[in-house]
């Protein structure tokens, strides 16, 4: 990370006009605790390609961390490392550490079981991927995996999750109906509910609104802001306004490297690195 690069800044470079900026998130360091951190983290795909290069990055507890950067820079790769999704395909390799706090456990260490990692770290994908089951069973799936059998417990958790994901009103009358009959935006909120139901410690979102229309997008953005009171969120987005609106911290990546990490307001109004600056002012992307 290169932070001492001094760049001349002018107001017109701001991507989001002052008046449209979200209510400023007051950084209050005394309340900020670390939930996880990446230390000298690298990732290699099975073909030997190094998609992530020596990344150091904190993930704050109950804050939204946005990962931005041009397409192909490794945002998804980084995100999918945090719940060890890459283990599903043979030959992929992690290097370095992803430490989960406060235990200090290394998620990619020798003894770490990817299944247990995924029980702790939930994920929502770019394209809604509801299971070919009922709405109810989709949300209940994560609970059943954790061995929850009690009908009432599941009923209640399903309702809570659907409410938290702001999709309860639209689904409460057809919980037994097929999830694939929902609209794209509803399906994505259902997938968020599904990820939330088992109360993950960290929620990963990979461009969750890229396949959605503006109204559904706005709903999900509201939802993420509300959730950040209770869940640690890491979101990949290529929509910079979205990152500016909903995140507390922003990480800017470029060709596998973390170029700049900081307070979202600072990144968007006062980027330290020229690459960050040209990216957020739209000079490439």
């Amino acid at each position, binding site marked *: 990370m290169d932070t001492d690069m001094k760049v001349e800044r002018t107001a017109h470079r701001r991507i989001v006009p002052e008046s449209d900026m979200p209510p400023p998130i007051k950084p209050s360091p005394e309340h900020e605790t670390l939930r996880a951190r990446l230390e000298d983290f690298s990732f290699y795909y099975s073909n030997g390609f190094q998609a992530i290069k020596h990344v150091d990055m904190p993930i704050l507890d109950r804050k939204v961390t946005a990962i931005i950067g041009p397409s192909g820079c490794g945002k998804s790769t980084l995100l999918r490392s945090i*719940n060890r*999704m890459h283990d*599903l395909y*043979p030959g992929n390799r992690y290097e370095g550490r992803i430490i989960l706090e406060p235990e200090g456990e290394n998620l990619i260490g020798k003894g770490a079981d990817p*299944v*247990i990692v*995924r*029980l702790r770290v*939930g*994920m929502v*994908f770019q*394209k809604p*991927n*509801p*299971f*070919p*089951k009922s709405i109810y069973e989709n949300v209940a*799936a*994560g609970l*059943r*995996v*954790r061995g929850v059998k009690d009908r009432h417990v599941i009923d209640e958790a399903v309702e809570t999750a659907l409410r938290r994901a702001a999709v309860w009103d639209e689904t409460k009358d057809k919980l037994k109906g097929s999830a*694939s009959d929902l609209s794209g935006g509803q399906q994505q909120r259902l*997938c968020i509910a*599904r*990820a939330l139901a*088992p109360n993950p410690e960290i929620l990963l979102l990979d461009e969750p609104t890229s396949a959605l229309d503006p109204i559904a997008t706005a709903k999900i953005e509201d939802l993420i802001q509300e959730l950040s009171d209770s869940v640690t969120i890491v979101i990949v987005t290529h929509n910079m306004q979205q990152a500016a609106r909903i995140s507390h911290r922003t990480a800017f990546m470029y060709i596998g490297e973390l170029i700049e990490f900081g307070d979202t307001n600072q990144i968007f109004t006062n980027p330290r690195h020229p690459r960050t600056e040209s990216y957020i002012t739209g000079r490439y992307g």
Partner: protein
Amino acid sequence: MPDQPIPRSDDLIRSGFVTRRRLIARGMGAFLFLCAALSVFVTAAIVFILLRDSWDFFAEVPLTDFLFGTMWTPMFIDKQFGVLPLLAATLQTAGLAMVIAVPFGLTMAIYLSEYAPDAVRETIKPALEMLEAVPTVVYGYFALLVMTPFLQQFIPGLRGINLLVPGIILGIMILPYVVSVSEDAMRAVPDSLREGGYALGMARWQVATRIVIPGAFSGITAAFILGMSRAVGETMVLAVAAGQNPNLTFDPREGAATITAYIVQMSLGDVARGSLAYQTIFAVGLLLFVITLLFNIIGFFLRRKFREVY
């Protein structure tokens, strides 16, 4: 080699090249249509003959006697035409085949689709499909000469000719087909769904049973129904190992002629053409046709449904 200029289009038209091409295209079209029409015609002709000859049969034997009668003695003095003995033997062997094919087929398909590394799958699948090349008569004699004597050591009362062993062998015979089709259905389930399951903390077997099987359900069902339809129509194994004796039994340790075994027996024998006994071939043939047609129709719709899902 002299340079050949690229011909201009009006030269091609003038030289007759275009006309020739058009004729060839027409000729090919007509030829392919004829081939397709021929196969439709053959099928239609078979159905027509089945219907015509069994029409004569049902003019003499009431349909209810045929469907619900418990004695099948077309060659006796006291002629009886109750098809239940043949039908019961057919359905029992097909049912036994399913008892073998469903659990083993499902397990193998799950293994191949969800667990096997690519190299293993690329080896096992063709090997499995090669089993389809084994002539069915070989399976028949394997049942009769190897498997039955072997199982007789463990199963008291198992006759030399029985329904159990050919049923098991039928199950093994349809296994390659069932595995191959249901594995295709499972692999058609998109990886994004699997990833969704893993992201919730599912283990591999949970993804297989909770995501992949429900996702491929109609395809898997279609595989089994079409497999069942094959088992119902299979002939050689049953003719060899299940016997030729129409015998209404629900004890698979006994032998009994199936519909197909009966047809073979009658076709080889010297019954007079046009006699009632001769016409029974077509009546039971029609019944068999209706049963397998039903299975195939159900399987067809299920397969189409599962194609539409993704």
